[in-house]
């Protein structure tokens, strides 16, 4: 490792400067503007009425909890499925696992709108599944659109590939001998998973969770196209407020979304900056 002197620190600072200026200019300034705007009434005076409304209005509260609920279910579902998939890819040697490991990232390369409309043609009540069932004399209506099921299904489709990618990388970093030596001293598969595999990959799982949480709490396209009319996820609600030209309330909704993201950002920072004792090498 390069020895740190004040010179290298200055160099690092200089290299980061353009990015920081850019970040300040295009992120921080609008952020502050939105923040200030959220504390104004319609005529620019300081007021808490936007927040008061969001935390007292029945619809707004329903939207808030709905957003959090969808996001939490998405995170839990995506992580669970991804972890199982990643375990399979890491520890199975079969042909199927090789095929999956080459194609599982494909959803990352499909544009959002394309994927949503493609999914709709399959699962809508008159879609592919329905027509297929009619061939066999049934009239199966999946009922997956325009409700929470649809949003969550779509979110899973988008996020499983990403989460699997991160967890696969984490699991690949656990040497076989760690697992084998655990088995060797007498631990079964399940015990080995909870004592070795999980602790050694939990950090990356938390990172994946944070990313999924942040990208889904503010999601718009999916809930807008296949979500219900009520309750609405905050992304859609924000757009509603905007289209009704209630910019201050829209700003307050933005700040709330930001606050939720901040919570997960703090989790992310905490897991990344706080190194556990065992991660510090003494050498």
């Amino acid at each position, binding site marked *: 490792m390069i020895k740190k002197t004040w010179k290298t620190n200055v160099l690092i600072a200089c290299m980061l400067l353009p990015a920081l200026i850019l970040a300040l200019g295009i992120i921080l300034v609008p952020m502050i503007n939105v923040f200030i705007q959220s504390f104004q009434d319609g005529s620019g005076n300081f007021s808490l009425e936007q927040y008061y409304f969001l935390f007292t209005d029945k619809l707004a509260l329903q939207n808030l909890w709905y957003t959090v609920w969808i996001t939490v279910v998405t995170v839990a579902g995506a992580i669970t499925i991804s972890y199982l998939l990643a375990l399979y890819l890491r520890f199975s040697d079969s042909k199927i696992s090789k095929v999956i490991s080459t194609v599982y990232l494909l959803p990352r390369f499909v544009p959002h709108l394309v994927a949503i409309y493609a999914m709709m043609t399959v699962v809508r009540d008159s879609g592919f599944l329905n027509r297929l069932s009619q061939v066999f004399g049934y009239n199966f209506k999946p009922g997956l659109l325009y409700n929470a099921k649809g949003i969550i299904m779509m979110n899973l489709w988008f996020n499983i590939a990403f989460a699997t990618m991160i967890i696969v990388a984490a699991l690949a970093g656990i040497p076989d001998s760690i697992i084998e030596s*655990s088995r060797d*001293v007498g631990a079964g598969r399940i015990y080995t998973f909870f*004592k070795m595999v999980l602790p050694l990959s939990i950090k990356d799982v938390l990172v994946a969770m944070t990313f999924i949480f942040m990208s889904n709490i503010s999601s718009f396209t999916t809930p807008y196209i296949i979500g219900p009319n009520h309750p609405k996820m905050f992304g859609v609600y924000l757009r509603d407020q905007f289209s009704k030209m209630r910019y201050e309330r829209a700003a307050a909704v933005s700040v709330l979304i930001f606050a939720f993201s901040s919570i997960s950002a703090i989790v992310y920072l905490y897991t990344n900056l706080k190194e556990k004792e065992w991660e510090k090498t*003494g050498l």
Partner: protein
Amino acid sequence: MSGNAKLEIRDLTMLYKTGDGVRNINLAVEQGELVTLLGPSGCGKTTILRTIGGFLQAASGQILISGKDITHMLPEKRPTAMVFQSYNLWPHMTVYENMAFGLKLRKVPKSEQKRRIAEMLEMIKMSGYEKKYPGQMSGGQQQRIAIGRSLLLQPDVLLLDEPFSALDAKIRSQMREELRKIQTDLNITVVFVTHDQEEAMALSDRIVVMNKGSFEQVGPPQEIYNRPASRYVADFIGEMNFIPMPDGSIKAVRPENVSVSPGTGGNLDGYVRTIMMLGHYIEMTVDTDCGIVKLFVSAEEAEQYKRGNPVALTLGESHRYNDDQSAAG
């Protein structure tokens, strides 16, 4: 096969999808014996070890420990303990936690755990390291802990898979000595895998020389060195001159069994090619009609020779192999 062997392998075959692997292996290891599987990489030595440990499944044959068939047991059920080449220790646990892990699984009481771990650390000279994490120790220290952790569980057979190959030369020979000492003190049964013939020589009660999935020769180090059963073994163990004979066979002579004198008229004549100082002795190579012959001379003796001098060689104890590489007498 003897009935009181600690570990017995009967007609074991284990094949990979590629067709590589080991075929029809038979081996018996006595209680307290240290047997080394020696061979180049890919010869199947690790395959046998991992099959004993339960990490690979035998296609056919049997593995018995203390007379009990363990061929189809899961690794966690086997009375074996394995030390790997590297990454043995669990990085997120302290030395103490690493060592206590297996004891906990065996429901050893806490106080008993503590006592046994302290004793073991004492024995492997690692007392005071209880609270360290693996990442805070050197490779040699980690392997010591790994061996200690395995020994704590009092396995019937200890399996070591090139445990010292990632260490540097000095620590490696030190570790060898310590391992040998602990092994004889505790009278434990060990199967050791290595590609380093020097290590095998230094450690083993018996060596199994392997080639392409089968045994070439099994015997004590001395026997393997002095009476290599095939040209392959002769070549692999120690240094050996191979001199083609007029009848088509090949004569194998160790460098220390070749003596040299100035002039001509020996079993083989030639010219000095190189003289190389190797500490307290000199290695000399001689260009002959039958190729280059290597031999050792003392420093004083070497003074009378220069590059290009004609020399006469006398060949001492030798072995003969036919072209098909089997011993011919």
